[in-house]
């Protein structure tokens, strides 16, 4: 059995630098929403906007630095599967919330 490292598409392993960068960015992007909520300095909508933008950026940071998703050909099918999943998610998450709030509004 070969002891050499196996190369496989869609799961490149990154480098010390990329994990370090991902770690520091994640720490900052975790600190931002916690500080926003704990200090309570901003108004309600601004705090929510801060939480969600920091969350979305941190998810992108994780996908890029930890899961190594990019536009390279090795990761193309992984990215395509993710985009397809996001489309399905947007359809039924958005659709469900729309229907339920509409129902709530009409039954008030």
């Amino acid at each position, binding site marked *: 059995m070969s002891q050499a*490292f*196996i190369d496989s598409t*869609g799961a490149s392993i990154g480098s010390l630098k990329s994990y370090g960068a991902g770690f520091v960015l994640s720490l900052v992007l975790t600190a931002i929403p916690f500080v926003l909520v704990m200090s309570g300095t901003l108004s309600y909508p601004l705090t929510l906007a801060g939480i969600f933008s920091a969350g979305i950026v941190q998810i992108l940071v994780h996908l890029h630095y930890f899961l190594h998703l990019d536009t390279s050909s090795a990761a193309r099918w992984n990215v395509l599967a993710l985009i397809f999943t996001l489309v399905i998610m947007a359809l039924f998450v958005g659709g469900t919330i729309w229907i339920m709030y509409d129902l709530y509004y009409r039954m008030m």
Partner: protein
Amino acid sequence: MITTDASTIDIACREEVEHADTVAIQTFGFWIYLMSDLILFATLFTTFVVLGGAYAGGPTGKELFDLPYLLGETLFLLFSSVTCGLVLLALHDGKKKWVLIGLAVTFLLGLGFVSMEINEFHGMIAAGHGPDRSAFLSSFFTLVGTHGIHVTFGLIWMAVVIAQVAVKGLTSPVQSRLMRLSMFWHFLDIIWIGIFSIVYLTGVV
């Protein structure tokens, strides 16, 4: 003799190629599983968003959630995600000792996260704020509990891989399993970002 040798080499090469393909297919197949898991979590998130305001006279998120405690859980999971990445680097360099140390540290950090979550759930249920109290708490326990069960299964998987690395060494199948475990672990950290943003922080604002 020469033809026999050549055909042997030919077969060996073909096996090598087939093996590389197998790993790529397994990795991609696991990615497809993760995408289906993402759909599962999306349904639970949607349920929480719809029911999250139905307190039924019970406690709200503001009264239940302890943010410094949540930050502790979050950091446990984030640190474990990074050490899990470092395990792959050690794997790439063929350093078995560091793979084992890294996996052990990742395991302990993950165990810390699960212990904190069990403690949190236990405290809530003991205070009468269990999943039967309100629709908000039902959807809360379902979503956060499902994530916790995923992490627990990740820990069991990690314990098995640690044993395999220790006994079998860094063989190709073990390497392939380790890479899929790492994908699973990073995926769970990404789901946790959604949970602490949508469930906890939004609930406390």
